[in-house]
């Protein structure tokens, strides 16, 4: 969660920053810098570009310090700045790539089922649109594969391979823990379009886990 109320300690921090206190600035960079870089990497795939975005964001934050009114938490403000800059870079990157457009609204308008249609019975079968066979429950044992580092890597790799909109939305919502309103506002997406992208992304991650966990079981 980004949090929406400014912390009272932030008032002191802001005063220190405005007076040019380097320790205060370093503390801020150490607290939020890594999260800002993760957000940048959600939008742009190259770490060199992400680093540029993060630098640009800090500069933007410093220049905007006097305009920061403390209506949101400092963290929210910083993440919004980095997301907006990263988004601009991603759009620019997308324009030079032939098959990508970073048109998130359009991406969400394309029809794509959560599961292949052959998982469900056809119109001429006994129970149309019901499962052909139920999904196999995953083991919930504490030492099961579910908890392994390998599983997490599988999830990270699956997310990295998703189309732009799905990748960005699931990263912000489920990895970073933003709420839907924050994601909609930063991405300039409607609530509905955002949920469509999140739904597809989650469905694909679930499917990847299913393939992995079902193949693992004896």
């Amino acid at each position, binding site marked *: 969660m980004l949090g929406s109320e400014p912390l009272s300690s932030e008032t002191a921090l802001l005063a220190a920053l405005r007076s040019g206190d380097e320790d205060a600035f370093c503390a801020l960079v150490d607290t939020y*810098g*890594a999260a800002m870089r993760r957000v940048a990497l959600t939008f742009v795939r190259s770490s060199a570009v992400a680093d540029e975005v*993060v*630098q640009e964001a800090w500069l933007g934050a410093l220049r905007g310090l006097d305009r920061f009114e403390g209506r949101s938490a400092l963290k929210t403000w910083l993440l919004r700045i980095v997301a907006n800059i990263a988004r601009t870079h991603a759009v620019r990157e997308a324009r030079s790539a032939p098959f990508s457009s970073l048109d998130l609204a359009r991406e969400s308008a394309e029809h794509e089922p959560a599961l292949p249609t052959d998982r469900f019975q056809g119109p001429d079968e006994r129970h149309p649109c019901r*499962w052909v066979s*139920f999904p196999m429950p995953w083991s919930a044992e504490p030492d099961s594969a579910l908890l392994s580092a390998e599983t997490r890597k599988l*999830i990270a790799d699956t997310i990295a391979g998703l189309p732009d909109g799905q990748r960005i939305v699931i990263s912000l919502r489920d990895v970073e823990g933003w709420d839907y309103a924050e994601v909609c506002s930063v991405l300039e997406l409607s609530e509905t379009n955002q949920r469509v992208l999140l739904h597809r992304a989650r469905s694909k991650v679930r499917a990847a886990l299913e393939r992995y966990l079902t193949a693992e079981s004896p």
Partner: protein
Amino acid sequence: MNDDFSCQEMVEVVTNYLDDALPPDERQRFERHLSYCAGCGTYVNQMRETIRQTSMVPREESLPPTLREEIVAQFRNWKRD
């Protein structure tokens, strides 16, 4: 009249259900289906587990040192201006 969701519809509205974004009547239809369909129960649990596992994907918790230095250098320049 049976207006329950089919299993195929269930897997398409599950995200709205988990996000509490289904209108009350659809929420009822969703929960009614869950009450008798073990397959969809498993599916919904797996979506919950997917969300939980995704939230535990390891995240980079610090900045590369050179980037941090550049950001601090930028601060010093800003201070001078």
